[in-house]
């Protein structure tokens, strides 16, 4: 274990993957060393080590970036594309949704698209309406894609590594605040299976299901409620799609209560699917309705005075838990 930032952990994953397999390549705006190795340095050093052909900075051309990744993947490479911010994914969605996600299916299984898209987002830094959106629900609603959201530096490494070697198109959603956060990260091979949720903390009274940056507060709240004698089971989804329904249902079947916390807008968000499935499968067995915590139905405001009011908080999480406890 070494203590590094999530950005460095992600870098380790890509570097180790590139060292292990010559088909792993990377592209995106500024990802090569002459341009600084990515705005958060996640690809720093890679073009120097692996050559300018395998790690390419691109023009500002999101469609061309995503398309080149799709093409290279079809040709048998394992591209790791960076779409600098998730809001810019709106420019690359034709390639991601109409092509990456569908080519295997439309080719009758003849063609694989083993592509990884890294993107960064998250509110909380006063970046305003066009630089903060979480749209993982869109991608989860797109059959053919895998959607992964890490919450710790170790997971940044282990999940990104698995995405790169997965034979399906994966979108790996980095959080711009988390990228600077430090944590223990395994040295050497570290691969965390996709499609499996992580029971971060076992508990008996209520299940909290979350992913990404809110996990920090979720864990803290679980801890402090634990001191009060409330036993909270914490599930970090890690993969949003395919969803680990079994892990969710097993837990909630036991605790009878669930709270879902995500950063994205609550309405029509990932939490809706999870809540719907819990109620469908555990009808009559729950002690309280599932609580969903997410952003209200609004774009992200610039002013920090407003931005903080629309995000989750330990207080809101605690209140939601207490509500399910009645």
């Amino acid at each position, binding site marked *: 274990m070494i203590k590094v930032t999530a950005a460095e952990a992600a870098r380790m994953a890509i570097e180790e993957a590139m060292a292990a397999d010559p088909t792993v390549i990377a592209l995106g705006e500024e990802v090569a060393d002459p341009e600084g190795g990515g705005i958060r340095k996640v690809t720093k050093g890679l073009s120097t080590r692996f050559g300018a052909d*395998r790690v390419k900075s691109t023009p500002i051309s999101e469609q061309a970036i995503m*398309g080149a*990744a799709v*093409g290279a993947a079809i040709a048998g490479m394992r591209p790791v594309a960076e779409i600098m911010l998730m809001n810019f994914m709106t420019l690359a969605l034709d390639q991601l949704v109409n*092509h990456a996600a569908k080519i295997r299916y439309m080719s*009758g*299984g003849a063609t694989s698209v083993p592509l990884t898209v890294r993107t960064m987002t998250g509110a909380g830094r006063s970046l305003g309406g066009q630089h903060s959106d979480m749209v993982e629900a869109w991608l989860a609603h797109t059959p*053919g894609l895998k959607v992964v959201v890490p919450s710790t530096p170790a997971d940044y490494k282990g999940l990104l590594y698995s995405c790169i070697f997965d034979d399906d198109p994966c979108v790996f959603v980095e959080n711009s605040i988390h990228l600077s956060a430090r944590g223990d990260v395994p040295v050497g091979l570290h691969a965390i299976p996709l499609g499996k949720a992580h029971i971060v903390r076992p508990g008996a009274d209520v299940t909290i299901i979350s992913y990404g940056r809110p996990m920090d507060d979720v864990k803290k709240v679980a801890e402090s409620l634990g001191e009060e004698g409330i036993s909270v089971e914490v599930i970090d989804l890690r993969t949003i799609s395919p969803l680990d329904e079994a892990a969710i249902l097993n837990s909630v079947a036991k605790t009878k209560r669930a709270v879902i916390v995500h950063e994205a807008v609550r309405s029509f968000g990932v939490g809706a699917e999870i809540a719907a499935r819990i109620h469908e499968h555990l009808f009559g067995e729950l002690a309280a309705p599932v609580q969903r915590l997410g952003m209200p139905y609004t774009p992200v405001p610039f002013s920090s005075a407003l931005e903080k009011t629309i995000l989750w908080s330990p207080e809101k999480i605690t209140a939601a838990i207490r509500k399910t406890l009645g």
Partner: protein
Amino acid sequence: MTDTTAHAAADEPDAGALLDIYKRAATIVLTDEKLRAVIRSGRLSTPYYSPRGQEIISAAMAVNLRKDDYVVTIYRGMHDHLAKGVPLKDLWAEYAGKAAGSCKGKGGPMHITHPDVGVLVTTGIVGSGLPIANGLAWASKIRQEDRVTVTNFGDGASNIGAFHESLNMASLWKLPVIFLCQNNRYAEHTRYDKGTSIERISDRAVSYSMPGVTVNGNDAIEMWRAARDAVARARAGEGPTLIEANTFRFHGHHMGDSGEYMAKGELEAAMIRDPFVALRQLIVARGAASDADLTAMEDALRTEIDEAAAYAFAAKYPEPEEALEDVYASAVS
């Protein structure tokens, strides 16, 4: 003077190449004839965007390609598919939505692929093949193969953002890719000049410091020459080329197109200059083959196509469970 003539002579496909182009074009023309017949009769129900009138472009390009070169094309892509070697049975069965189709019936005519012959992507989204072609070409470049990627698109597609992004990237990265614009003067019902603000699409290559050339795509020799040069350039690692191949579509945008948006006589004039007929005349004039030879070739092809169609009609539909397969490489919940 003699020099130029000698050079011009060497600068043309030989008899074998001309016959090869003809055979590919004939396969396309006869398949198109049959497809339109079975669709018109109601035997086959599928969207169909006939490439008839544009067959020389694909055929003359294909004879310059190797089997392992990559081709990307669009919904109007049957000519590109067959020219590159997609087997007739696989194509017909896919059109018919059968399990034996090249995509198990799941892709359909708009998404025919056949990796064995290098047909890797057929897209229904205008302009989206270009960025993907860059990725294919980039992969070849990294692997230090001398493989070439050709991406086909229409005149209308030259106005979409992906065109611009792709040509810029291909030029910067010196990719072995050929951007082959089949300019048939219409995008659906939109006449060329209503959608495109420049007279020659090939002049847009200037924006990317890339060679751009406009040719008569319906002239087998001109088209062959442009294809040969661009392929040589790409194969030698000298980078991309934009080819604008002028042509015309004989059957409108798709089956049932009334053509009301076209000028009177415009289609008729184009059909009189049928490029397939012109190639036949050229071959016979040059003595590369006789009329009878070509007719025999066509008869053989017609039989093959009839067999492929019969095979497709007789083939089984995919099982219902097949609808849920191939979404992911690995099974997931």
